Protein backbone atom coordinates (compact mmCIF):
# COMPACT_ATOMS: atom_id res chain seq x y z
CA UNK A 1 0.00 0.00 0.00
CA UNK A 2 1.58 3.28 -1.00
CA UNK A 3 1.52 6.49 0.95
CA UNK A 4 -1.30 7.93 -1.12
CA UNK A 5 -3.50 4.90 -0.49
CA UNK A 6 -2.68 5.02 3.19
CA UNK A 7 -3.61 8.66 3.40
CA UNK A 8 -6.84 7.91 1.55
CA UNK A 9 -7.79 5.26 4.08
CA UNK A 10 -6.86 7.61 6.88
CA UNK A 11 -8.93 10.42 5.44
CA UNK A 12 -11.95 8.20 4.77
CA UNK A 13 -11.86 6.83 8.25
CA UNK A 14 -11.49 10.27 9.62
CA UNK A 15 -14.66 11.35 7.90
CA UNK A 16 -16.61 8.27 8.93
CA UNK A 17 -15.60 7.78 12.50
CA UNK A 18 -16.76 10.03 15.20
CA UNK A 19 -13.84 11.77 16.77
CA UNK A 20 -13.01 10.42 20.17
CA UNK A 21 -13.58 12.57 23.13
CA UNK A 22 -10.35 14.35 23.91
CA UNK A 23 -9.95 13.47 27.55
CA UNK A 24 -6.21 14.07 27.55
CA UNK A 25 -4.12 16.89 26.39
CA UNK A 26 -2.54 15.89 23.06
CA UNK A 27 0.99 14.66 23.63
CA UNK A 28 3.88 15.88 21.57
CA UNK A 29 6.10 13.32 19.86
CA UNK A 30 9.04 15.62 20.58
CA UNK A 31 10.25 15.07 24.13
CA UNK A 32 11.35 18.11 26.09
CA UNK A 33 14.85 18.21 27.63
CA UNK A 34 13.40 17.29 30.99
CA UNK A 35 11.72 14.29 29.45
CA UNK A 36 14.46 13.17 27.11
CA UNK A 37 17.84 14.17 28.50
CA UNK A 38 18.51 11.06 30.57
CA UNK A 39 17.05 8.89 27.85
CA UNK A 40 19.60 10.35 25.47
CA UNK A 41 22.41 9.89 27.98
CA UNK A 42 21.32 6.29 28.54
CA UNK A 43 21.20 5.77 24.79
CA UNK A 44 24.76 6.91 24.20
CA UNK A 45 26.15 5.16 27.29
CA UNK A 46 24.41 1.90 26.42
CA UNK A 47 25.47 2.21 22.82
CA UNK A 48 29.08 2.74 23.81
CA UNK A 49 28.97 -0.19 26.25
CA UNK A 50 27.43 -2.43 23.60
CA UNK A 51 29.89 -1.18 21.01
CA UNK A 52 32.83 -1.81 23.33
CA UNK A 53 31.70 -5.28 24.34
CA UNK A 54 30.77 -6.34 20.84
CA UNK A 55 34.03 -4.95 19.48
CA UNK A 56 36.02 -7.12 21.85
CA UNK A 57 33.92 -10.25 22.11
CA UNK A 58 31.73 -10.55 19.04
CA UNK A 59 32.81 -8.61 15.95
CA UNK A 60 36.39 -9.95 15.87
CA UNK A 61 35.05 -13.51 15.87
CA UNK A 62 32.48 -12.74 13.19
CA UNK A 63 35.11 -10.89 11.12
CA UNK A 64 37.50 -13.83 11.51
CA UNK A 65 34.75 -16.28 10.59
CA UNK A 66 33.73 -14.25 7.53
CA UNK A 67 37.33 -13.71 6.43
CA UNK A 68 38.34 -17.32 6.95
CA UNK A 69 35.28 -18.46 5.04
CA UNK A 70 36.01 -15.95 2.27
CA UNK A 71 39.61 -17.14 2.10
CA UNK A 72 38.49 -20.75 2.14
CA UNK A 73 35.96 -20.15 -0.63
CA UNK A 74 38.45 -18.13 -2.67
CA UNK A 75 41.09 -20.82 -2.09
CA UNK A 76 38.69 -23.57 -3.08
CA UNK A 77 37.62 -21.67 -6.19
CA UNK A 78 41.26 -21.00 -7.10
CA UNK A 79 42.14 -24.65 -6.49
CA UNK A 80 39.15 -25.78 -8.54
CA UNK A 81 40.10 -23.42 -11.35
CA UNK A 82 43.69 -24.59 -11.13
CA UNK A 83 42.60 -28.22 -11.18
CA UNK A 84 40.32 -27.49 -14.11
CA UNK A 85 43.19 -25.76 -15.89
CA UNK A 86 45.50 -28.68 -15.18
CA UNK A 87 42.86 -31.14 -16.32
CA UNK A 88 42.38 -29.13 -19.50
CA UNK A 89 46.13 -29.06 -20.09
CA UNK A 90 46.32 -32.81 -19.44
CA UNK A 91 43.34 -33.43 -21.70
CA UNK A 92 44.85 -31.27 -24.43
CA UNK A 93 48.17 -33.08 -24.05
CA UNK A 94 46.41 -36.43 -24.04
CA UNK A 95 44.46 -35.52 -27.16
CA UNK A 96 47.62 -34.20 -28.78
CA UNK A 97 49.49 -37.38 -27.87
CA UNK A 98 46.58 -39.45 -29.07
CA UNK A 99 46.54 -37.60 -32.37
CA UNK A 100 50.30 -37.98 -32.66
CA UNK A 101 50.04 -41.67 -31.80
CA UNK A 102 47.32 -42.10 -34.39
CA UNK A 103 49.39 -40.30 -36.98
CA UNK A 104 52.44 -42.32 -35.98
CA UNK A 105 50.47 -45.55 -36.14
CA UNK A 106 49.12 -44.57 -39.54
CA UNK A 107 52.61 -43.71 -40.69
CA UNK A 108 53.95 -46.97 -39.32
CA UNK A 109 51.14 -48.83 -41.02
CA UNK A 110 51.91 -47.16 -44.27
CA UNK A 111 55.65 -47.77 -43.82
CA UNK A 112 54.96 -51.40 -42.99
CA UNK A 113 52.76 -51.71 -46.04
CA UNK A 114 55.43 -50.11 -48.13
CA UNK A 115 58.10 -52.34 -46.62
CA UNK A 116 55.89 -55.36 -47.14
CA UNK A 117 55.34 -54.42 -50.75
CA UNK A 118 59.02 -53.78 -51.19
CA UNK A 119 59.90 -57.05 -49.50
CA UNK A 120 57.31 -58.87 -51.55
CA UNK A 121 58.75 -57.30 -54.67
CA UNK A 122 62.28 -58.25 -53.57
CA UNK A 123 61.21 -61.76 -52.73
CA UNK A 124 59.39 -62.04 -56.02
CA UNK A 125 62.41 -60.71 -57.89
CA UNK A 126 64.69 -63.03 -55.95
CA UNK A 127 62.36 -65.95 -56.57
CA UNK A 128 62.20 -65.04 -60.25
CA UNK A 129 65.98 -64.78 -60.40
CA UNK A 130 66.44 -68.06 -58.58
CA UNK A 131 63.82 -69.65 -60.77
CA UNK A 132 65.54 -68.36 -63.87
CA UNK A 133 68.88 -69.49 -62.55
CA UNK A 134 67.47 -72.89 -61.68
CA UNK A 135 65.85 -73.11 -65.06
CA UNK A 136 69.09 -72.12 -66.74
CA UNK A 137 71.00 -74.58 -64.64
CA UNK A 138 68.45 -77.28 -65.31
CA UNK A 139 68.59 -76.47 -68.97
CA UNK A 140 72.39 -76.61 -68.85
CA UNK A 141 72.24 -79.83 -66.92
CA UNK A 142 69.80 -81.22 -69.40
CA UNK A 143 71.98 -80.10 -72.27
CA UNK A 144 75.05 -81.57 -70.62
CA UNK A 145 73.24 -84.77 -69.86
CA UNK A 146 71.89 -84.86 -73.37
CA UNK A 147 75.34 -84.18 -74.73
CA UNK A 148 76.82 -86.78 -72.44
CA UNK A 149 74.08 -89.23 -73.38
CA UNK A 150 74.64 -88.57 -77.04
CA UNK A 151 78.38 -88.97 -76.55
CA UNK A 152 77.82 -92.17 -74.74
CA UNK A 153 75.31 -93.21 -77.37
CA UNK A 154 77.76 -92.45 -80.13
CA UNK A 155 80.56 -94.08 -78.22
CA UNK A 156 78.49 -97.16 -77.71
CA UNK A 157 77.32 -96.96 -81.29
CA UNK A 158 80.87 -96.63 -82.47
CA UNK A 159 81.95 -99.53 -80.27
CA UNK A 160 79.04 -101.56 -81.52
CA UNK A 161 79.70 -100.53 -85.08
CA UNK A 162 83.37 -101.36 -84.60
CA UNK A 163 82.52 -104.75 -83.22
CA UNK A 164 80.10 -105.30 -86.03
CA UNK A 165 82.51 -103.96 -88.58
CA UNK A 166 85.28 -106.16 -87.12
CA UNK A 167 83.09 -109.15 -87.34
CA UNK A 168 82.14 -108.24 -90.90
CA UNK A 169 85.70 -107.50 -91.89
CA UNK A 170 87.03 -110.40 -89.88
CA UNK A 171 89.68 -108.29 -88.37
CA UNK A 172 90.11 -106.20 -85.34
CA UNK A 173 89.46 -102.59 -85.54
CA UNK A 174 92.28 -100.79 -83.94
CA UNK A 175 91.98 -98.17 -81.29
CA UNK A 176 93.04 -95.58 -83.73
CA UNK A 177 90.26 -96.59 -86.07
CA UNK A 178 87.72 -96.43 -83.32
CA UNK A 179 88.93 -93.02 -82.35
CA UNK A 180 88.78 -91.80 -85.90
CA UNK A 181 85.31 -93.23 -86.39
CA UNK A 182 84.14 -91.62 -83.16
CA UNK A 183 85.50 -88.22 -84.05
CA UNK A 184 83.90 -88.34 -87.43
CA UNK A 185 80.57 -89.42 -85.97
CA UNK A 186 80.71 -86.68 -83.36
CA UNK A 187 81.51 -84.14 -86.00
CA UNK A 188 78.53 -85.28 -88.04
CA UNK A 189 76.37 -85.25 -84.93
CA UNK A 190 77.40 -81.71 -84.16
CA UNK A 191 76.66 -80.72 -87.68
CA UNK A 192 73.23 -82.37 -87.51
CA UNK A 193 72.45 -80.79 -84.10
CA UNK A 194 73.56 -77.40 -85.14
Amino acid at each position, binding site marked *: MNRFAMMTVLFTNGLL*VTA*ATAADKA*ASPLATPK*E*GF*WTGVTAIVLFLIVFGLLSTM*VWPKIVA*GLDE*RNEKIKGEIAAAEDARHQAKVALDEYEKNLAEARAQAQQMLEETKSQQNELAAQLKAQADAELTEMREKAKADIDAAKKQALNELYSESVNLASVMAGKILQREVSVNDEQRLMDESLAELKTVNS
Partner: protein
Amino acid sequence: MMSSVTLAADPVQHVINHAFVVNDDGVWLWSSAQTNMIITALIMLLGGLFVAKAVSTGQESEGHARWVTNNRFAHMIEVICGYLRENTVRPLLGERTNALMPFLWTIFFFILINNMLGLIPILDLQNIIAGKIAPEMVAEHKAFIGGTATQSIWVTGALAIASAIVINGAGIKELGLGGYIKHLTAEAPIFVWPIIIPIEILGTFIKPIALAIRLFANMTAGHILVAVLLGFAAQGFFKSDNPLLGFPVGVVSSLGVIAIYFLEIFVGFLQAFVFMFLTTVFISLLAHHGDHDHDHAHEGAAAHA
Protein backbone atom coordinates in the same frame (compact mmCIF):
# COMPACT_ATOMS: atom_id res chain seq x y z
CA MET B 1 -9.56 -3.35 28.36
CA MET B 2 -9.84 -1.92 24.91
CA SER B 3 -10.27 1.54 26.29
CA SER B 4 -6.79 1.43 27.72
CA VAL B 5 -5.21 -0.18 24.74
CA THR B 6 -6.58 1.11 21.53
CA LEU B 7 -9.25 3.61 22.25
CA ALA B 8 -7.10 6.33 23.73
CA ALA B 9 -8.09 9.67 22.38
CA ASP B 10 -4.52 10.55 21.50
CA PRO B 11 -2.74 8.01 19.28
CA VAL B 12 0.56 9.74 19.96
CA GLN B 13 0.37 8.30 23.49
CA HIS B 14 0.93 4.84 21.97
CA VAL B 15 4.06 5.98 20.24
CA ILE B 16 5.99 8.31 22.49
CA ASN B 17 8.31 7.52 25.32
CA HIS B 18 6.70 7.14 28.74
CA ALA B 19 8.14 8.15 32.06
CA PHE B 20 8.57 5.62 34.83
CA VAL B 21 10.55 7.50 37.44
CA VAL B 22 10.22 11.29 37.58
CA ASN B 23 11.92 13.51 40.15
CA ASP B 24 10.38 16.50 41.86
CA ASP B 25 11.58 18.86 39.15
CA GLY B 26 9.72 16.86 36.55
CA VAL B 27 12.89 15.38 35.10
CA TRP B 28 12.44 11.86 33.76
CA LEU B 29 15.04 9.70 35.44
CA TRP B 30 13.84 6.48 33.93
CA SER B 31 11.52 5.85 31.03
CA SER B 32 10.18 3.00 28.95
CA ALA B 33 12.64 3.75 26.13
CA GLN B 34 15.57 3.25 28.50
CA THR B 35 14.30 -0.21 29.48
CA ASN B 36 13.80 -0.97 25.80
CA MET B 37 17.38 0.00 25.08
CA ILE B 38 18.65 -2.21 27.90
CA ILE B 39 16.71 -5.09 26.37
CA THR B 40 18.22 -4.19 23.01
CA ALA B 41 21.69 -4.19 24.53
CA LEU B 42 21.09 -7.59 26.16
CA ILE B 43 19.75 -9.02 22.89
CA MET B 44 22.77 -7.70 21.06
CA LEU B 45 25.27 -9.04 23.59
CA LEU B 46 23.71 -12.47 24.10
CA GLY B 47 22.68 -12.84 20.47
CA GLY B 48 26.07 -11.55 19.37
CA LEU B 49 27.94 -14.08 21.47
CA PHE B 50 25.74 -16.88 20.16
CA VAL B 51 26.18 -15.77 16.55
CA ALA B 52 29.93 -15.26 17.00
CA LYS B 53 30.27 -18.81 18.27
CA ALA B 54 28.17 -20.19 15.43
CA VAL B 55 29.96 -18.19 12.74
CA SER B 56 33.47 -18.90 13.99
CA THR B 57 35.37 -21.58 12.10
CA GLY B 58 35.21 -24.88 13.99
CA GLN B 59 37.90 -27.37 14.94
CA GLU B 60 39.82 -29.20 12.25
CA SER B 61 38.38 -32.46 13.54
CA GLU B 62 34.99 -31.34 12.23
CA GLY B 63 36.26 -31.55 8.66
CA HIS B 64 34.42 -29.50 6.06
CA ALA B 65 31.53 -28.96 8.49
CA ARG B 66 33.68 -26.52 10.46
CA TRP B 67 33.17 -23.94 7.70
CA VAL B 68 29.40 -24.19 7.84
CA THR B 69 27.15 -22.04 10.04
CA ASN B 70 24.52 -24.52 11.10
CA ASN B 71 22.11 -22.26 12.96
CA ARG B 72 19.60 -20.42 10.73
CA PHE B 73 19.47 -17.31 12.89
CA ALA B 74 23.27 -17.10 13.01
CA HIS B 75 23.37 -17.67 9.28
CA MET B 76 20.90 -14.82 8.74
CA ILE B 77 23.00 -12.43 10.85
CA GLU B 78 26.14 -13.62 9.05
CA VAL B 79 24.54 -12.89 5.68
CA ILE B 80 23.45 -9.42 6.85
CA CYS B 81 26.93 -8.67 8.22
CA GLY B 82 28.58 -9.95 5.06
CA TYR B 83 26.25 -7.95 2.82
CA LEU B 84 26.72 -4.73 4.79
CA ARG B 85 30.50 -5.12 4.80
CA GLU B 86 31.14 -6.27 1.25
CA ASN B 87 28.30 -4.69 -0.72
CA THR B 88 27.54 -1.52 1.17
CA VAL B 89 30.58 -0.30 3.06
CA ARG B 90 33.62 -1.67 1.24
CA PRO B 91 32.75 0.00 -2.10
CA LEU B 92 32.71 3.34 -0.25
CA LEU B 93 35.44 2.99 2.34
CA GLY B 94 37.82 0.50 0.76
CA GLU B 95 40.74 -0.25 3.06
CA ARG B 96 39.12 1.57 5.97
CA THR B 97 36.21 -0.88 5.99
CA ASN B 98 37.63 -3.35 8.50
CA ALA B 99 38.45 -0.63 11.00
CA LEU B 100 35.04 1.06 10.84
CA MET B 101 32.84 -1.99 10.39
CA PRO B 102 32.36 -2.79 14.11
CA PHE B 103 30.87 0.66 14.70
CA LEU B 104 28.67 0.49 11.61
CA TRP B 105 27.43 -3.01 12.41
CA THR B 106 26.72 -1.99 16.01
CA ILE B 107 24.75 1.08 15.06
CA PHE B 108 22.80 -0.84 12.41
CA PHE B 109 21.75 -3.62 14.78
CA PHE B 110 21.15 -1.23 17.68
CA ILE B 111 18.69 0.78 15.61
CA LEU B 112 17.18 -2.28 13.95
CA ILE B 113 16.44 -4.09 17.20
CA ASN B 114 14.99 -0.95 18.77
CA ASN B 115 12.81 -0.44 15.68
CA MET B 116 11.60 -4.04 15.83
CA LEU B 117 10.95 -3.86 19.58
CA GLY B 118 8.78 -0.83 18.86
CA LEU B 119 6.56 -2.98 16.68
CA ILE B 120 5.83 -5.40 19.49
CA PRO B 121 2.86 -4.04 21.48
CA ILE B 122 4.67 -4.36 24.80
CA LEU B 123 3.36 -0.99 25.97
CA ASP B 124 -0.26 -1.94 25.35
CA LEU B 125 0.21 -5.32 27.01
CA GLN B 126 1.75 -3.56 29.98
CA ASN B 127 -1.19 -1.15 30.10
CA ILE B 128 -3.61 -4.05 30.18
CA ILE B 129 -1.78 -5.61 33.12
CA ALA B 130 -1.17 -2.28 34.85
CA GLY B 131 -4.84 -1.42 34.37
CA LYS B 132 -5.67 -4.31 36.63
CA ILE B 133 -2.99 -3.91 39.31
CA ALA B 134 -1.94 -0.26 39.17
CA PRO B 135 -4.55 1.83 37.36
CA GLU B 136 -2.94 5.08 38.46
CA MET B 137 0.14 4.17 36.43
CA VAL B 138 -1.97 4.00 33.26
CA ALA B 139 -3.80 7.17 34.19
CA GLU B 140 -0.49 9.02 34.57
CA HIS B 141 0.76 7.54 31.28
CA LYS B 142 3.66 5.92 33.04
CA ALA B 143 5.30 2.83 31.71
CA PHE B 144 8.34 0.76 32.58
CA ILE B 145 8.81 -0.76 29.19
CA GLY B 146 7.50 -0.44 25.63
CA GLY B 147 7.24 2.05 22.84
CA THR B 148 9.91 2.71 20.28
CA ALA B 149 13.18 4.01 21.63
CA THR B 150 14.22 5.22 18.18
CA GLN B 151 11.09 7.36 18.13
CA SER B 152 12.76 9.59 20.73
CA ILE B 153 14.70 12.45 19.19
CA TRP B 154 17.00 12.23 22.21
CA VAL B 155 17.90 8.65 21.37
CA THR B 156 18.33 9.29 17.67
CA GLY B 157 20.25 12.44 18.56
CA ALA B 158 22.58 10.45 20.83
CA LEU B 159 23.20 7.94 18.09
CA ALA B 160 23.77 10.77 15.61
CA ILE B 161 26.34 12.30 17.98
CA ALA B 162 28.14 8.95 18.07
CA SER B 163 28.03 8.88 14.27
CA ALA B 164 29.27 12.46 14.05
CA ILE B 165 32.24 11.64 16.30
CA VAL B 166 33.12 8.67 14.12
CA ILE B 167 32.55 10.56 10.85
CA ASN B 168 34.80 13.47 11.83
CA GLY B 169 37.28 11.30 13.72
CA ALA B 170 37.72 9.07 10.69
CA GLY B 171 38.04 12.19 8.54
CA ILE B 172 40.79 13.66 10.73
CA LYS B 173 42.58 10.31 10.82
CA GLU B 174 42.38 10.01 7.06
CA LEU B 175 43.23 13.59 6.12
CA GLY B 176 45.20 14.78 9.13
CA LEU B 177 44.03 17.81 11.11
CA GLY B 178 45.36 20.21 8.48
CA GLY B 179 43.78 18.27 5.69
CA TYR B 180 40.50 18.12 7.58
CA ILE B 181 40.45 21.90 8.03
CA LYS B 182 41.51 22.38 4.43
CA HIS B 183 38.64 20.13 3.40
CA LEU B 184 36.28 22.77 4.79
CA THR B 185 37.31 25.04 1.92
CA ALA B 186 36.15 22.41 -0.57
CA GLU B 187 39.23 23.43 -2.60
CA ALA B 188 37.33 26.48 -3.77
CA PRO B 189 39.03 29.77 -4.76
CA ILE B 190 39.83 31.98 -1.79
CA PHE B 191 37.21 34.58 -2.61
CA VAL B 192 34.49 31.91 -2.21
CA TRP B 193 35.76 30.81 1.20
CA PRO B 194 33.54 33.19 3.18
CA ILE B 195 30.58 31.34 1.73
CA ILE B 196 31.97 27.83 1.47
CA ILE B 197 33.56 27.51 4.91
CA PRO B 198 30.40 28.39 6.88
CA ILE B 199 28.41 26.07 4.65
CA GLU B 200 30.87 23.23 5.21
CA ILE B 201 30.93 23.88 8.97
CA LEU B 202 27.14 23.94 9.02
CA GLY B 203 27.17 20.74 6.97
CA THR B 204 29.29 19.07 9.61
CA PHE B 205 26.45 19.63 12.09
CA ILE B 206 23.56 19.27 9.68
CA LYS B 207 24.59 15.79 8.59
CA PRO B 208 24.13 14.15 12.02
CA ILE B 209 21.08 16.31 12.72
CA ALA B 210 19.57 15.02 9.48
CA LEU B 211 20.38 11.47 10.56
CA ALA B 212 18.63 12.00 13.89
CA ILE B 213 15.56 13.71 12.45
CA ARG B 214 15.16 11.19 9.63
CA LEU B 215 15.08 8.21 11.99
CA PHE B 216 12.92 9.99 14.55
CA ALA B 217 10.41 11.18 11.95
CA ASN B 218 10.11 7.85 10.19
CA MET B 219 9.56 5.93 13.39
CA THR B 220 7.13 8.49 14.77
CA ALA B 221 5.05 8.82 11.61
CA GLY B 222 4.77 5.11 10.98
CA HIS B 223 3.82 4.25 14.53
CA ILE B 224 1.31 7.09 14.78
CA LEU B 225 -0.28 5.83 11.58
CA VAL B 226 -0.59 2.34 13.06
CA ALA B 227 -2.03 3.76 16.27
CA VAL B 228 -4.52 5.93 14.38
CA LEU B 229 -5.72 3.06 12.24
CA LEU B 230 -6.00 0.82 15.30
CA GLY B 231 -8.04 3.56 16.95
CA PHE B 232 -10.30 3.76 13.90
CA ALA B 233 -10.70 -0.01 13.84
CA ALA B 234 -11.53 -0.17 17.53
CA GLN B 235 -13.98 2.72 17.30
CA GLY B 236 -15.55 1.26 14.20
CA PHE B 237 -16.08 -2.12 15.82
CA PHE B 238 -16.90 -1.15 19.39
CA LYS B 239 -17.85 2.50 19.67
CA SER B 240 -19.78 3.35 16.55
CA ASP B 241 -23.42 4.31 17.04
CA ASN B 242 -24.20 2.97 13.61
CA PRO B 243 -22.94 -0.62 13.15
CA LEU B 244 -23.62 -0.52 9.43
CA LEU B 245 -21.12 2.30 9.17
CA GLY B 246 -18.79 1.27 11.96
CA PHE B 247 -18.20 -2.34 10.89
CA PRO B 248 -16.90 -1.57 7.37
CA VAL B 249 -14.73 1.16 8.81
CA GLY B 250 -13.39 -1.33 11.34
CA VAL B 251 -12.68 -3.90 8.63
CA VAL B 252 -10.97 -1.43 6.31
CA SER B 253 -8.94 0.03 9.16
CA SER B 254 -7.90 -3.43 10.37
CA LEU B 255 -6.72 -4.39 6.91
CA GLY B 256 -4.92 -1.06 6.72
CA VAL B 257 -3.21 -1.73 10.05
CA ILE B 258 -2.00 -5.14 8.85
CA ALA B 259 -0.62 -3.59 5.66
CA ILE B 260 1.02 -0.72 7.52
CA TYR B 261 2.52 -3.15 10.03
CA PHE B 262 4.29 -5.00 7.25
CA LEU B 263 5.37 -1.65 5.86
CA GLU B 264 6.69 -0.68 9.29
CA ILE B 265 8.75 -3.87 9.50
CA PHE B 266 10.28 -2.91 6.18
CA VAL B 267 10.76 0.69 7.30
CA GLY B 268 12.41 -0.56 10.50
CA PHE B 269 15.03 -2.40 8.44
CA LEU B 270 15.28 0.39 5.90
CA GLN B 271 15.86 3.17 8.42
CA ALA B 272 18.50 1.15 10.27
CA PHE B 273 20.21 0.59 6.94
CA VAL B 274 19.84 4.23 5.88
CA PHE B 275 21.34 5.50 9.15
CA MET B 276 24.32 3.17 8.79
CA PHE B 277 24.66 3.78 5.05
CA LEU B 278 24.58 7.57 5.36
CA THR B 279 27.13 7.42 8.16
CA THR B 280 29.32 5.44 5.77
CA VAL B 281 28.72 7.93 2.97
CA PHE B 282 29.58 10.87 5.24
CA ILE B 283 32.77 9.09 6.33
CA SER B 284 33.68 8.47 2.69
CA LEU B 285 33.14 12.15 1.85
CA LEU B 286 35.95 13.07 4.21
CA ALA B 287 38.62 11.38 2.14
CA HIS B 288 41.64 12.46 0.13
CA HIS B 289 40.85 14.76 -2.75
CA GLY B 290 42.05 12.15 -5.19
CA ASP B 291 38.88 10.30 -4.30
CA HIS B 292 36.75 13.40 -4.30
CA ASP B 293 35.01 12.88 -7.61
CA HIS B 294 34.17 9.40 -6.51
CA ASP B 295 32.88 10.69 -3.20
CA HIS B 296 30.72 13.39 -4.66
CA ALA B 297 29.06 10.76 -6.77
CA HIS B 298 27.67 9.43 -3.49
CA GLU B 299 26.30 12.76 -2.39
CA GLY B 300 23.41 12.26 -4.77
CA ALA B 301 22.70 8.91 -3.14
CA ALA B 302 22.84 10.57 0.26
CA ALA B 303 20.44 13.26 -0.84
CA HIS B 304 17.95 10.70 -2.08
CA ALA B 305 18.05 8.52 1.01
